[in-house]
């Protein structure tokens, strides 16, 4: 019989987990590598006490501050914006993601994934508005998250491709460096044309040589699902893939076979794709051991 709290526990388990931004992680790793275990723990204590006293003395002379340290400047300060919706665009009835009558994107049907370039590799953007204010005008898509801003794409808009829109452009998106909610601003002629929010999934689980081509969050649980893995390096006919729970217990073990090889357009290397099936019994935290190489723990 199901316990009454099961649903609540499931909801708690689905709350997002967080990882530090890449540069913060690099800083910590550097400090760990520099710091010997013999670090004197209290050597800076007198300095800290003096510094604290000085800070307090200083604070007595400045206007009261509402938040100190722990709840201070968070990296995200933007209130949530609207999300894009899927709709069909005439005349070809293509499924696009956007804001009807304003802006739309035709590209990967799947959500964007952090650090991934594939899903944004080929993006067709459509604009609606006053043609004279759009055609041949520069556009730029900026994305903001945790106090960092990236340019997703930029260029010059062309006239309509179909009869339905007023301007279009074929472009590619720069990868999102981090997962989470990104606030996107579309500029045309340096003026904000439209804004919206995008949810970006965590990076694909990867090891030194292998990267999953599916986002675990998109895979169904409780049944066998097809999974693709990409290898950068020499060819192999088969590889063994092991699914472990967060405690390292093996849950599923399967052989994946090589399907084909592709040229990596960005790094001019050869990529090998392997396919196979795995069963994630439920939502949770998992580790994959691919051909003896371990991924970091990830959630599905």
């Amino acid at each position: 019989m199901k316990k009454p709290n099961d649903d609540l526990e499931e909801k708690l388990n689905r709350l997002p987990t967080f990882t530090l931004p890449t540069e913060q992680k690099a800083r910590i790793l550097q400090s760990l590598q520099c710091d010997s275990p013999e670090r004197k723990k209290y050597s800076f204590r007198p300095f800290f006490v003096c510094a604290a006293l000085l800070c307090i003395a200083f604070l007595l002379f400045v206007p009261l501050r509402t938040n100190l340290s722990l709840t201070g400047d968070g990296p995200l300060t933007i209130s949530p914006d609207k999300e894009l919706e899927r709709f069909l665009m005439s005349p070809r009835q293509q499924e696009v993601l956007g804001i009807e009558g304003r802006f739309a994107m035709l590209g990967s049907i799947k959500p964007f994934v952090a650090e991934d370039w594939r899903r944004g590799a080929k993006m067709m953007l459509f604009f609606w508005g006053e043609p004279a204010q759009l055609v041949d005008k520069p556009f730029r898509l900026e994305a903001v998250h945790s106090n960092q801003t990236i340019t997703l794409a930029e260029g010059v808009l062309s006239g309509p491709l179909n009869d339905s829109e007023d301007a279009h452009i074929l472009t590619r998106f720069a990868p999102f460096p981090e997962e989470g909610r990104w606030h996107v601003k579309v500029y045309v002629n340096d003026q904000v044309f439209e804004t919206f929010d995008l949810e970006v999934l965590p990076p694909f689980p990867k090891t030194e040589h292998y990267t999953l081509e599916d986002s675990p969050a998109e895979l169904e649980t409780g049944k066998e699902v097809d999974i693709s893995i990409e290898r950068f390096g020499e060819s192999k006919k088969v590889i063994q893939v092991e699914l472990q729970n967060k405690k390292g217990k093996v849950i599923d073990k399967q052989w994946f076979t090589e399907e084909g090889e592709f040229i990596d357009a960005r790094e001019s290397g050869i990529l090998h794709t392997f396919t196979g099936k795995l069963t994630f019994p439920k939502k949770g935290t998992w580790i994959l051991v691919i051909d003896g190489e371990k991924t970091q723990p990830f959630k599905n």
Partner: protein
Amino acid sequence: MPDTIEEWFHLYERDLTSYLIYFTGSFDVEDYVQETFLIALQKQDSFHKRSHPRTWLISIARHHVLDTYRRKKVWERLMPFLYSSPPVQASLEAALIATDDQHRLYLAISKLSARDRDVVILRGILELSVSETAQVMNCDTNHARVLFHRALAKLRKSLEEVSYEEA
């Protein structure tokens, strides 16, 4: 099992960061994460694999945050006019609003007492086992089990209140 602190960092940084973000209600946790690993590096010799490294690291992070809070509280008592009660950080809320349900759940968790919030984060969000939760919270397993059930009951009540306030 990984032997170096760098490997532990790769394996458990997400758990620590998540724990600290939910526990402090702030995204500004880089210093806590760094201090946790530096303390672990110093005490690595005293880690005898009696517990899982993840549990051990979360215990260190928890002690470190509580210690910082305790010191902060002393200063708050001495100079209350300098402090105001920490509000739920808007940015953290914003990051959580994947669905209205998650938003309400986060608000309800933030209304729990520190101890209830602690056990909800450890057992509910980070999925630590009862014995791991007990190790982190420094209590016996039965107590941890009871704490979690009580916290869930309070969370359910808090959720109803949040929904009522929103309505």
